Each structure stands twice: as C-alpha cells, then as structure tokens.
C-alpha cells in the first residue's frame, strides 16, 4: 500500500516538474536552456515511478512501519524537531533548544524530570558556549537577549 502510494507520488511529482520545466524553455539558440535538465530528470522520475508501479504487485514484502509506542516515539522526535525549528525565531536558540530537549527526553524516552532538566540545561549551555563563544557564531537570541 505504501509502495503504491509512493510510486504514484513519484509519477505525479515527475509529471508536475516536467510540466513546469517545459514552461522554462527546453532549448535556446543551440544551447540547452534552463528547463532541459529538469525536464529530462522529471521524465526519468515519472518513468521510474511507472515501472515500479507496474512491478509492485509481484513483490509482496510489506515494509515494516512502526506501530503503537514505536510510532509514537518516531513522531515524537519529528514533532520535537519541528517545534525547535518553529520556535527558534521567537524564543532564541538557547530556550528553544532547552525546551525541545526536555520534550524529547521526557516524552520520547521517559527519562526522569530532574535528569531531563539537568541534561538539557548542560547540553544547551555547552553547545551555545562552543559555537557561540569558541567559534564566534551568532546563534539566534530570544527576546530576553540570549
């Protein structure tokens, strides 16, 4: 089921990209134009998707996607990263990182509160020091200045 969905996705993606590339123009005066390479690549994606779709009923092995608790952990990690990316511009790196780490440690792996807070705090401090001070990189700051 997943295989088929993915293959159809390839076909749609390839088709859409090919159409877009067509509008960019394929051939200029004797030289390939902007659209040519993407067009060919998109056609290959589409073609490969078709081949895979036609083949897939024969291959029976279903991919082992996680269920239950395992799935929750995977989604939890993804959600944690999404939260981090979304909140950095508002909270600054330090706070966003701190909160995200606590979320990951608590929700995904069920570590104790004290342990999570301590580890999150130390990790963020070390990382900010390493990148911010030692390497001189400017990490995003929250509204409180750090």
């Amino acid at each position, binding site marked *: 089921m*997943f295989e088929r969905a*993915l293959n159809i996705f*390839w076909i749609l993606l390839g088709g859409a*990209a090919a159409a*877009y*590339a067509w509008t*960019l123009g394929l051939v200029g005066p*004797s*030289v*390939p134009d*902007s*659209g040519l*390479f*993407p067009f060919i*690549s*998109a056609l*290959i*994606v589409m073609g*490969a*998707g078709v*081949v*895979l779709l036609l*083949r897939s009923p024969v291959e029976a092995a279903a*991919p*082992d*996607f*996680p269920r239950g608790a*395992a799935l929750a*952990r*995977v989604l*939890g*990690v*993804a959600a*944690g*990263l999404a939260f*981090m*990316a979304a909140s*950095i511009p508002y909270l600054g*790196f330090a706070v966003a*990182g701190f909160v*995200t*780490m606590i979320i*990951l*440690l608590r929700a*995904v*792996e*069920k*570590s104790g509160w004290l342990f999570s807070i301590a*580890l*999150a705090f130390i*990790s*963020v401090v070390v*990382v900010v020091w*390493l*990148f911010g001070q030692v*390497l*001189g*990189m*400017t*990490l995003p700051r929250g509204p409180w200045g750090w």
Partner: protein
Amino acid sequence: MDAVGGLLTGFGVILTPENLYLCFLGSLIGTLVGVLPGVGPLAALALLLPITFTLTPVGGMVMLASIFYGAMYGGSTTSILLNIPGEAASVVTCFDGHQMAKQGRAGAALGIAAIGSFVAGTLGVIVMTFFAPAIAAVAIRFGPPENFALMVLGVICTLYMIGGSLVKGVLMVALGFLTAAIGIDVVNGRERFTFGSIDLSAGIELLAVVIGLFGVTEVLSNVERIVKSTVVTDRIRGLWPTLADWRASWRPMLRGSGLGFFLGLVPGGGPVTASFMSYALEKRISAHPERFGKGAIEGVAGPESANNAAVAGSIIPVLSLGIPGNPVTALLLGALVIQGIQPGPLFIAQRPDLFWGIVASMYVGNVFLLLLNLPLVGLWAQLLRIPYRVLFPIVLLLSVVGTYSANKNVFDLWVMLGFGLLGYVLHKLEYDLAPFVIALVLAPLLEQSLRQSLAMSPDGAMIFLQRPGTALMLTACAVLVALMFRRAKKS
C-alpha cells in the same frame, strides 16, 4: 629554488615556537570543527579570519591551512559513531563506517580513517613539494569540456554504486538532479522551481540535506527500536584495526590518495567529489561488492584518504597560480590578499619563504593530526556506551546547530527535518539514499559545464571530441557503461 632547497627553507620557517604553536592550534581547531556536525572548514575559516590580522602572513596561513585539512581528519568521527556527517566530505564514511560501529568495530574504523588521512595528506604534500608548478600548469587548462567529462564519469560511478534495485537507484539520481535545479540557474541567471520564495532561490543547502538524510533518519530509525540500550549492542571488539583490516585497507588508501589528489586539482572537484568517487571505485574493484554498505573497511579507508589528498590537490592551484578551485581555497586566497600578498604565478618566486613555509607546515600538521586523533579513538568509541535515550537528544541538538551554521537560516532546519522524514520513509521502502546525494553534488557542475562547453564551441557538441582529455574521459565512460550492461546481462 629547487624542491629540496625550498623544503629546507620551509622547515626553517616553520620550526619556530610561534609557527609550530599556530600549526598545532589550527590542527586542533580543524579536528574540532570536523567533529562537530555541520560546521565545516569554510565556516571555521571565515570565523577565524580576523585573527590572522594580528599574525604574520606565514603564521596566519599555516593556521588556516591546518584547519582545512584538520577538518578532514575529524569529519569521519561523527560519521562513524552516529551516522551524522561531520561535513559533506564525510558523508560517504557514514555508509560503512557507522555499520562498523554498530558491529562494535568503531575503533578500527576510526583508526583506519585517521591513518588513511595521514597517509594521503603526507603523500599529497610530497607530490606538491616536487611537482606543484608543473601540475598547476596542466590543471589550468582544465576547462568546461573536461569538467563535464569528469562529472559524467562521476555519475556513471554512481550508477555502479547502486545496491539493490537499479530502477530505484536511477530514480534517486534523477531526483537528485531535480533537487539540484531548485534555485538560480547559474548559466543565465533565471530562477527555477523557486515559486517566489527567497529561501528557495538560494537552492537547497547540501548540508541540511545530508544531515537530515543520514543523521536525522538514523535517529528516527533508532528510536523505533532502541528503548533502553546503546547504539552498539555487540561487545566492543578491540580498539585497533586488526591485521586483516590493514591488509584490506592499504591499497584503498593509496588509490584514494591518488584519486583524491587529482580531483582536488580540478576546479569544482574537491574533497566531497573525491570521497564519493573513491567509494564508487573501491566498490567497483572489490571482489565482494555486496559487502559495501554493511561494514566494509575499504569503504572507510578509500574515501577518508581521498578527501585528505583532495585538500593538498586543491591548495596547489591557489599557491602556484592564485586560482581557487572551491570556496575554502577562495577564502585562503582572500586571507593572503588581506595580508597584502598577491597570489599568482609569481608567488613562489616572490615569496619562497611563505610558499615553502606553508608546504613544510603541511608535513608537520599531518603529524600533529595523527598524534591528536589516534589517542582520541578510544575516547570516541566509549561515547557509544552512552545510553541512547541520553545520546539522541544531544545528537539532534548538534544536528540543529550544525545545519543552522551553514547559512544562519532557519529554513534549512525545515529542509533537514523534511529530508529526515523522507529518508526514513525511503529507507523503509528499500531505497538507497547515496545516489541521491551524489547526484545532488555533481548535478550543478555537470549541467553548468555542459552548457558552458556548448556555448564556447562554434561546432556545437564536436568540442567534446576535439579536446584530447575530454575525448579520453568520455571514451572511458562509454567503456564503463558497456561493461555495466554486460555484467547486468550475465546476472
């Protein structure tokens, strides 16, 4: 001044307390920068450039150069331990290096990586010592048609690397090409696939892709299964490479050195391309290619040597001609200019102290790095003993910072997450992710050099046959493709 005399001058320059200290400092920083995921030599050099203002030209250049090749030593560490590339040139080391770590052989992998780096780095400097000007004179004639032929060779090597379904592999390559097209078409300045977004107009950041596709994917896959244990479930079997490892590795090291050096010379080549092509070469030559991707030590020895040799190769055009082949060497050039030194063909003649000082420092630096990295192998291997539930949030935190460091753009974090999820799904459905990454790396230069070649040729496509180097490489490609079909037919 002949090579030996020059080298003696160079050692005379470098063997002062101040310069030795700077070489060591640079090696240390380079290793650190290499180990930290995402932050690569370019970022580090850009950040540390102002420090060179207060140093002498020799001191400043020695430090910057040692950061450059130092990063190639450290880069393999997180690749092997955590499947997170330290920087783009260490992506390939993830494939077999991390598998080795999972089998309890992290120490061997790290050791071979360090030694391979040393061998390649030293060999590279030796060649540089004796042949730099001659090589530079040839390298400069490499134009768009030669670049194109080289990239085609690279893509064909990629097809060799594909394990599993060929159709899926080809799809990944094509997808890589498509992804590489997002952004501004360098040949005519038009935006492609950007849909009005400024972030997309800069293209998809390679670092975000590789950290997502390898690092994040690995974490997602691991949290599925590992609840309370560590990354390595087997007993850690010894910390050093065995005799068998040596026997398997020494030839890939030499091959990687040669290949990497050559690719470093070519503009647009460099450590990243070198590591990929070395992996493909080793897999192609191996008697048991199916071992690759499951912990074959050749897959670590070759690429790690290649990326270090490529550093030496890429420094030659800068010092001999004043021509930078990649962003890092462009920065080294800028550093020289800021110091008031004009790099160019006359550089060696006008500033032999500086040129030979830098060359001599590379010998010393490689020794420092070997001494720095080997003892750390034991330490790094112990890192894997940390329970995964503690390790993975730290890994993710580092991934986020590393990705962010590339362009200081939060958009890249979304790219990292997106590719992490994509990689997770594709991995489940048995897609090989490596061809996608290689295509992403090679596509821009391939497309650009093809269109440049056609633009500069009054006779259209004939230019590829008119130039001897190009014709030779393209013939080699044709032969390889023919061999590939023959193999496929047989099996």
